[in-house]
């Protein structure tokens, strides 16, 4: 039983990491209705830039704000060059544009910083926390716990940002109805720029954590692919949904791998969340927290 809990907690904690990536998606989706496939590439870009700057000899304290600046700048450029011209296009078109963007960012990142795998040292050890192991007999990673903490702080900050600030409220209005928002004088493009900037920052946090855990490498972009089922489960436009979805995906895929994997030869982590999301979609196409749509004819 404690093994089960160990797996579950491990899964939930890595689920938090998924949520972190998914958060970036939700932010952008809420504001501009774009499913930003390139969020994963942005995570990769952020991590690579940070490591790259460290390698150039920049101290960590300087490299962090510098990377943040780069990410925000990148996000703003994307918003300006890619998304604005595509405003009012069908969602699928926007989605495909972000796939193109993914390729571009990946190419750019590796061109600038090189393609070799690098480690990222945040001063955190990915090792079991002693006293937890002693008291309950379960292995809970210190790293995961800290990551979860960071994620929690980030979510709280974002929640505050949305509910307390003027921009946040405007953003909520935009998410509800673009036209109406425009009509009451909310500067749509300004909002979009801000949201993309925030998404860039979120990507940096996610990139640092994922990079520290798995090494900074091309494979980081696949994290984005994990975020998709998370969003399906949680709904594309719900921040709590992203968190809950992440937890579900993280926990269920770990449990599935451990308990189902051996029967089918393992490796099911790669697709389990997708099949889960697919089944879920068939039952409830609007997601856990999404609203049911009525088709006007």
């Amino acid at each position: 039983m404690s093994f089960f809990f160990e797996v579950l907690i491990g899964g939930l904690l890595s689920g938090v990491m998924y949520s972190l990536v998914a958060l970036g998606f939700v932010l952008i989706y809420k504001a501009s209705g774009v499913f930003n496939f390139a969020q994963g590439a942005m995570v990769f870009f952020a991590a690579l830039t940070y490591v790259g700057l460290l390698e150039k000899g920049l101290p960590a304290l300087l490299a962090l704000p510098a990377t943040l600046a780069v990410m925000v700048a990148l996000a703003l450029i994307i918003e300006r060059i890619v998304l604005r011209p595509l405003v009012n296009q069908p969602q699928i078109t926007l989605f495909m544009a972000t796939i193109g963007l993914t390729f571009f960012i990946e190419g750019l990142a590796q061109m600038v910083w090189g393609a070799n795998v690098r480690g990222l040292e945040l001063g955190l050890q990915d090792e079991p926390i002693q006293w937890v192991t002693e008291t309950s007999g379960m292995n809970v990673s210190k790293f995961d716990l800290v990551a979860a903490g960071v994620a929690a702080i980030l979510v709280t900050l974002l929640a505050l940002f949305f509910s307390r600030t003027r921009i946040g409220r405007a953003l909520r209005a935009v998410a509800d109805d673009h036209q109406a928002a425009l009509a009451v004088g909310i500067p749509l493009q300004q909002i979009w720029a801000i949201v993309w900037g925030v998404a860039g920052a979120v990507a940096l946090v996610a990139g640092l954590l994922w990079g520290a855990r798995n090494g900074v490498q091309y494979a980081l972009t696949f994290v984005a692919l994990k975020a998709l089922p998370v969003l399906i489960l949680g709904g594309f436009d719900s921040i709590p949904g992203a968190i809950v979805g992440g937890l579900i995906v993280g926990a269920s895929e770990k449990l599935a791998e451990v308990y189902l994997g051996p029967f089918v030869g393992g490796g099911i982590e790669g697709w389990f969340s997708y099949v889960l999301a697919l089944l879920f979609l068939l039952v409830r196409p609007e997601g856990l927290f999404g609203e049911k749509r009525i088709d006007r004819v």
Partner: protein
Amino acid sequence: MLYREAGQFKVSYAADQQIFSIRQDRFAVLALVAIAFLVVPVVGNQYWLSAILIPFLIFSLAALGLNILTGYAGQLSLGTAAFMAVGAFASYNFMLRIPGMPVLLAFIGGGTVAALVGILFGLPSLRIRGFYLVVATLAAQFFILWFLTKVGWITNYSSSGVITAQQIVILGYAFTTPTAKYLLVLSIVTVMALAAKNMARGNVGRSWMAVRDMDVAAEVIGIRLMRAKLLAFAVSSFYCGVAGALFAYAYLGTVEPEAFNLDLSFRILFMVIIGGVGTVLGSFLGAAFVTLLPVLLSVTVRYLDSNLDLHIAESTISNLELMVFGGLIIFFLIVEPHGLARLWQIAKEKLRLWPFPH
């Protein structure tokens, strides 16, 4: 300007509905086909045939398959490569397990198995729309590849998961040279492209486009959404399956499931976007573009490298390629969402109206 259409009038619907209704177009296409069949095999060298033209044709076929699903029927798919894999591995097993299996029949069998798998993964499209469907096709991509890797029977318990395609023998003739393989692939692609065009211009194609453009209206005029969508998945997957089989048999020879990864799916999606969504011609233009661009890029970079002494690394070229592809996709979506085929179309219209403006 080149089109002199005065005097080309149609006295029957059959003439009016033919694929190339302008005489000049008919001649041009016939000439192109003749060149492809008669001239290219003679003048093409081994490198061009096996490294450029054969993959180009195979990718065209795969792009055509994806175009049927995404371009005509409006269902976005990111699992193209997986359906190709199904076709490749199913053909391999047909050849392996049925003695005396004709290879063409094995390709058809491979396509058919891919079609069945396509229908399976297309089922969710009845309930979910738009890019939610991406999840279903991504699930297919990941699940199918995992399945092919994990089930040893499929790869005939090859330890590395790599299979070696059997030799192509038709009526006693072994297709071993690049020229022979090229001609075989060309024939198959030509026939299947013609069939695709026929479906596209007929009732099936119109039903697909109706579902794509306005599904409620399509339903109200009596089109069965389920049938139209599943048919699109089936036909699309069949095309991809055959393309996958050719990929294994006529191009790579030895192949592992990982060759059909998500990256290949994206690559084929790019062909469709760059070439032109919802056109048969676009599939070919897109495949040509995506196949030739890396060649062009590396030639250019090498040229610059040797002349300017820049010491450009091989990896730089591949990264540059990623950026160029990504940039082009965005460029096309913004500037010409209907791709090269539309550019061609516009150029043609201009020539037809010359000297008047378009």
